[in-house]
C-alpha cells in the first residue's frame, strides 16, 4: 500500500447556501501524481483550493470534514496557514508572475520566509529554475521583468517559484490550459521529473494529459467524488457509468 500524503475525509464545502463539495473522501499518495478530472463546474478547483486553504479569503466558504497532511490537520483553526502553504505549493491555471524580475519571482517565497542571504538566494534561484527546466533560457536575463517572458516560460517560472520554497506537495490547477502544445509537453515532462521529489495533484480537462502523466485519477461529478483508482484502470475499466461516459468523451 502506498504511503498517504494527504488524507481527505468526508469533506463538505458550501459557498453560502450552495453545496459545492459533497462528502468527498480521497487519499493522495506520496510521491505520485494524482489527476482530478470531471466536467466543468464539478468542483475540481474548489477541492484543490481546500488543500492549501485558499478559501480562507472567501467569507462565504464553509468547510466541514477533515483534511490531514501527514499529521497536520489542515482545516483546524489553529493551523498556521503560512506554514501550511509553504508545505503545499500551488500553480494556477493562468501564469501569474509578479511584476518583478525573474530572479525576484523565484526568490519571493524564500524572502518572505526570512531568507536574505544573497548567496543562498542566488543558489536557490538557479536550482529552482533548473528544476523547472527554464534555467538555460533565462540565465542571462535574471534581472529582466518576468512579464516579458512567453506564456509557457511564465508558467514554468511559476513552477520554479513554487519549487523554490521546497514544498512537499505541489497543486496544479489546469497548468497547461493557457499553453501551446510544445510548452505543454515541456510542463508535462517537468511534472514527471518533479514527481521524484514531490507529491503532485493536478486538475486537468485533457484526458490524454491525465493518462500521460498521472498515476492515479479521481473522477468528480457535481461535487461528488465518483471514482478513484489507478489511472489505467479509470480509463480502461471504469466501474461507474458516469466515469465511463466522461472518459470516453460523451459529455464534458
Amino acid at each position, binding site marked *: 500500500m502506498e504511503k498517504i500524503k494527504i488524507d481527505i475525509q468526508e469533506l463538505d464545502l458550501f459557498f453560502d447556501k450552495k453545496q459545492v463539495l459533497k462528502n468527498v473522501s480521497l487519499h493522495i499518495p506520496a510521491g505520485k501524481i494524482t489527476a482530478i478530472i470531471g466536467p466543468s463546474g464539478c468542483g475540481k478547483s474548489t477541492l484543490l483550493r481546500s488543500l*492549501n486553504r*485558499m478559501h480562507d*479569503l472567501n467569507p462565504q466558504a464553509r468547510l466541514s470534514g477533515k483534511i490531514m497532511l501527514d499529521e497536520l490537520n489542515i482545516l483546524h483553526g489553529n493551523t498556521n*496557514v*503560512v*506554514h501550511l*502553504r*509553504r508545505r503545499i*505549493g*500551488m500553480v*494556477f491555471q*493562468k501564469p*501569474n*508572475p*509578479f*511584476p*518583478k524580475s525573474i530572479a525576484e519571482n523565484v526568490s*519571493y*517565497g524564500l524572502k*518572505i*520566509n526570512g531568507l536574505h542571504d544573497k548567496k543562498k538566494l542566488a543558489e536557490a534561484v538557479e536550482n529552482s529554475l533548473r528544476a523547472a527546466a527554464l534555467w538555460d533560457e533565462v540565465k542571462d536575463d535574471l534581472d*529582466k*521583468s*518576468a*512579464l*516579458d517572458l512567453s506564456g509557457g516560460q511564465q508558467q514554468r517560472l*511559476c513552477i520554479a*517559484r*513554487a519549487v523554490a*520554497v521546497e514544498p512537499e506537495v505541489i497543486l496544479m490547477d489546469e497548468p497547461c490550459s493557457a499553453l501551446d502544445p510544445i510548452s505543454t509537453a515541456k510542463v508535462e515532462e517537468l511534472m514527471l521529473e518533479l514527481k521524484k521529489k514531490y507529491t503532485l495533484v493536478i486538475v486537468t480537462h485533457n484526458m490524454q494529459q491525465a493518462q500521460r502523466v498521472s498515476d492515479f485519477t479521481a473522477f468528480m461529478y457535481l461535487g461528488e467524488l465518483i471514482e478513484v483508482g489507478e489511472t489505467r484502470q479509470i480509463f480502461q475499466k471504469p466501474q461507474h457509468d458516469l466515469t465511463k461516459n466522461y472518459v470516453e468523451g460523451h459529455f464534458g
Partner: protein
Amino acid sequence: MKRKIIQILGMALMIAATLVVVAILGVVLFDLTAKGAPVLSWEFLTQSPKKGMTEGGIFPAIFGTTAVTLLSTMLATPLGIGCAIFLHEYAPDNAFTRLIRASIRNLAGVPSIVYGLFGVAIFVQFLGMGASLLAAGCTLGLLTLPSIITTTEEALRNVPRLTREGALALGATKWETIRTVVLPSALPGILTGVILALSRGAGETAPILFTGVAFYSRYLPGSVFDEFMALPYHLYILSTQHHAIEEVRPLAYATALTLILLVFMLNLTAFWARARWQRSLGAGK
C-alpha cells in the same frame, strides 16, 4: 456600404471634436505665450516683486506655490493611500463602507471655497496654526485627498486577483501580499492619481485664500508657520485687484504662463515616472 459611410461620418465627427478642443487649447496657450513670454526672463523668475508689483519678479510666489503644493502632497499622499488600502483591502463591503465611499466621491465635487472656509475654521482657528504655510498645506491636502483615495482604490482594484493569490499561495500574509505585490503593481496608477491631484492643487486659489497666502511678502517663508505668496493668488491680484491693472497686464500674463509651465512640468514628471516604472515592469504586457 451604408455601415461604411456611417463609420466614416462618425470618424469625421470625432476628429472634428478633437480639433475643436485642441484649437481652444492652442489659442489659450498661444495668447498666453505671445503676451507673457516677452516678460519672462531669468530676473522675472528669480526676483521679488518691486515697486508695488509693477516691476521685479515673482520668485516668492513660485517658491510659495511649490512649497504649499509639496507640503499638501506630503500630507495627503500617505493619508490617501492608507485610507484607500484600508477601504479596498480590509474594510468589509457593507452599507457603512459604501456610504463612506459615496461621501468621498461627493467630497471630490465640493467647491474649493468650501474647503477654504473649512480650513479657516479647523486649521487656522481651532488648531491654532494661524494663517500659515502649514494651514494652507493642510487645506490643500484635504482638497486633493478624495481624488487620491479614489484613484488609488481604482488602481488597487485593477490588480488581478490571480496575482494576489500567487503571493498568498507562497505563504505571504495579507499585509506582505499588499506590500510586496499589490502596491508595486498598482503604483503607476497611484502615482498618476497623486500627481494629477497635486497639479490641480497647485492652481487653486480659494483654499489658500484665507488660510495662509499673503498679498505681498518680500521674504520667503522661514518656517511652515509663516505666510507665503502663491502664483494663482498673485495672478488674481495682478489681474483684478491691482491699482494699475493695465500697466501690470504683461506681468499677469507672464505669471499665468509660469503657473501653466509649472503644472505642465508636474504632469510631465508623472508621465515620465509612469513610463519608467512600466518599462521596469515589462511595458504594459
